[in-house]
């Protein structure tokens, strides 16, 4: 039982990191990315390769993953600076689809669909550790950084850009730089989550980094509540425990459990947007359109 719970908790922490970092882009900077799984994947591959080729050190793997994802986040920052709204969502969708093809084809780095196996578990300074404390530590650091940043001038800048980009510009804010930084921060965080994921699963393949995964992460943020510190975490925990919770409902035929679960989370997304667009934690005014 404990192993099962530890495993779930580790995955939970990893997805909390993903949701929390995506929230920086979506909730604070108004950059609605549907490509978060791409950077999750980049981090996972980077972390896995560091562990496989160099040393299986968790910190090093996370650092490398954050670097790789952060730097390549430029692919996302570029359209974010050019277009907004629906166009940007479309661009990030395009990026997501292309990335999946690339992940499948760049077999020397990613192992393609076959994936990378035998990734060593996490170690800290040569000592084997469980993923959970490392993941919780990373989550805490990222949450703290997010909370501090969002309360700082940088957070104000992002929110100002989200609410009224032209006014922020007119007050001397370098919108391009701020957006690029926000995207880099969010993607680097996704990279850290990726490295943890790779070390925890000891196996990664492209199927964990598809559009469905991106949508799941996005649903976590939305259902929990954008632009709040805790909302995304609530969303992540709810969506991750949904399958386990449904498994205990006896009247659902076991062959349909997966579909029922998908229907529930689809319905939850739709109904929430109709009746409580701010999410479960967010305040109600936040769902309204940003000028």
């Amino acid at each position, binding site marked *: 039982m404990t192993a099962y719970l530890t495993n779930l908790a580790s995955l939970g922490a990893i997805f909390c990191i993903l949701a929390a970092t995506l929230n920086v882009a979506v909730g604070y900077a108004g950059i609605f990315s549907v490509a978060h799984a791409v950077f999750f994947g980049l981090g996972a591959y980077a972390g896995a390769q560091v562990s496989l080729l160099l040393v299986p050190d968790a910190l090093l793997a996370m650092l490398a993953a954050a670097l790789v994802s952060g730097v390549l986040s430029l692919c996302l920052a570029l359209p974010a600076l050019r277009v907004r709204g629906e166009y940007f969502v479309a661009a990030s969708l395009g990026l997501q689809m292309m990335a999946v093809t690339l992940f499948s084809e760049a077999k020397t780095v990613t192992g393609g669909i076959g994936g990378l196996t035998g990734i060593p578990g996490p170690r800290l300074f040569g000592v084997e550790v469980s993923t959970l404390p490392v993941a919780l530590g990373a989550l805490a650091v990222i949450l703290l950084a997010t909370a501090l940043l969002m309360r700082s001038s940088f957070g104000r800048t992002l929110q100002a850009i989200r*609410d*009224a980009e*032209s006014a922020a*510009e007119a*007050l*001397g804010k*370098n*919108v391009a730089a701020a957006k690029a930084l926000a995207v880099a921060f969010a993607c680097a965080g996704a990279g850290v989550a990726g490295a943890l994921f790779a070390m925890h699963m000891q196996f990664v393949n492209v199927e964990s980094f598809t559009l469905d995964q991106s949508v799941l992460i996005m649903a976590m943020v939305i259902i929990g509540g954008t632009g709040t510190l805790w909302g995304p975490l609530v969303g992540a925990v709810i969506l991750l425990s949904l399958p386990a919770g449904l498994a205990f409902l006896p009247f659902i035929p076991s062959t349909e459990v997966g579909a029922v679960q998908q229907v529930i989370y689809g319905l939850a997304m739709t109904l929430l947007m109709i009746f409580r667009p701010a999410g479960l934690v967010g305040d109600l*005014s936040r769902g309204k359109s940003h000028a």
Partner: protein
Amino acid sequence: MTAPLLICEGLSRSFGGVKAVAGVSLSLTAGMVTALVGPNGAGKTTCFNLITGNLRADAGKAMLRGQSIMGLKPHQVARQGVARSFQDLRLFTHMSVRDNVLAATETSAWFWQPGGAAARRAREAATEEALARTGLTALAEARAMDLAYAERKFLSMARILAARADIWLLDEPASGLDLSSRRRFGELLKEARRQGVAICLIEHNLDVVTELADRIAFLDQGKVLAEGEPEAILRDPKLAAIYFGDREDAA
């Protein structure tokens, strides 16, 4: 008379064959209020957009303290000391009043602002001062979207005050204000003028113009038709005909 802070010469811009601004020349001097007056669609806001870099000019130039600001991005122009307001305000609606103003004092997009604690205290002081001057101190924690109309207008002014710019471009800052608010707004403007800010405002209310403006530039169809003392311009029957021709609510 001191040298003008901002000089525009022959600014032009057309949209799909229509000349929105056709060769506008304008100069703004420290401690002077210039009003841009003219019927709707005369190109007043476009002029602002050309100066601030929100639009590229087809021709002409704009010099700030002798340096060209053509081709600069909006935030770069802003950092040179040009602050502007928008007709539709564009407040940071989900942020508190204080954060709206504080954001105006911070120009670095990096994770932190330069200058350390001393600079931070200075920004906070500027914020509190701007809030006090606009009468918003009591509302500092309220969210911008929850403010009343007049309070929003003053918040827009507070952002400009806090930005410490020496050129203000104000797009209909007094429109829709009741009499007492308008008076307070007038005081704000006069004080800024005393401190040597060069102000340019787009205004439809001729009472406000007469009360506050030192000079008037009359725009129609993208051109400056006349420029000079308010009394002289407003007394010109030809301009009045143009001005009132398609507007009845101006008075």
